[in-house]
């Protein structure tokens, strides 16, 4: 049974918006692509096949495809790193947040999406595999490489003392 669009939107729009925002780092784009993701589902709900995954992973797969299309069509429109670094200089409170944002943005795209889905959206490896159309082992490997890369690139921000996670 397919869920009603209103219910689906209520339950998932924040997560889909967050996912797209973290991939594109632009609020206006995240807003547009979140709307497009739900619109795509509402136009052709019959395309969703519950045997291939949950409606959540189906929505995230739509969002992912829209982001990839955006990358292909408008590659130059991502926020400039210099602008973000200047913002970090102006505001010490957001400096660490921006440093993490830039370090993740520097990762290869497939590593980025695996890390964002796992770390920020709480997806399992199986769910990430369903969203990205990959094998679970491949996702695991991408996630591992992403974390190893970040351990190196974020080393200058190593917290002093034991962090409270």
């Amino acid at each position: 049974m397919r869920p009603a669009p209103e219910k689906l939107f209520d339950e998932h729009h924040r997560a889909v918006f967050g996912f797209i925002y973290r991939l594109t780092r632009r609020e206006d784009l995240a807003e547009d692509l979140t709307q497009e993701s739900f619109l795509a589902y509402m136009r052709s709900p019959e395309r969703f096949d519950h045997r291939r995954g949950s409606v959540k992973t189906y929505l995230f797969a739509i969002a992912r495809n829209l982001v990839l299309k955006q990358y292909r069509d408008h590659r130059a429109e991502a926020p400039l790193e210099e602008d973000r670094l200047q913002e970090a200089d102006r505001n010490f409170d957001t400096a660490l947040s921006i440093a993490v944002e830039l370090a993740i943005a520097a990762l290869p795209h497939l590593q980025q999406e695996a890390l964002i889905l796992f770390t920020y959206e709480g997806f399992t490896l199986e769910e990430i595999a369903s969203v990205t159309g990959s094998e679970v082992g491949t996702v695991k490997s991408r996630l591992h490489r992403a974390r190893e890369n970040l351990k190196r690139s974020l080393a200058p921000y190593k917290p002093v003392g034991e962090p409270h996670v």
Partner: protein
Amino acid sequence: MFENDELTDRELDYLLKQWHAPGAPEGLGRFLLGPPKPWYSRLWTASIRIPLPVAAVMLLLLGFLVVQLRRAELPPAAIENAPLGFKELHPVAEFKPRIIRGASADN
């Protein structure tokens, strides 16, 4: 303040949590779903899912209650004088007609 060694998993998790994404804008769904409706308008379209066995039991109980209530409402005489069916009707064994004269017939 910071050291330049590679991070541990715990330290990396801590740093990753420092990146806060903005929340989704409030009016995001307006374009897709239209303006928000008052809560009471949902009363006309809301639905609940009931398992079939539960629904069947509830229907049976409802039917039983209706019959009981109707019986309680009828006076005992009404039950006794309830209309007869064809099964209760028998052919007359001996036909004895009685002529009842009205008061005006005596005149």
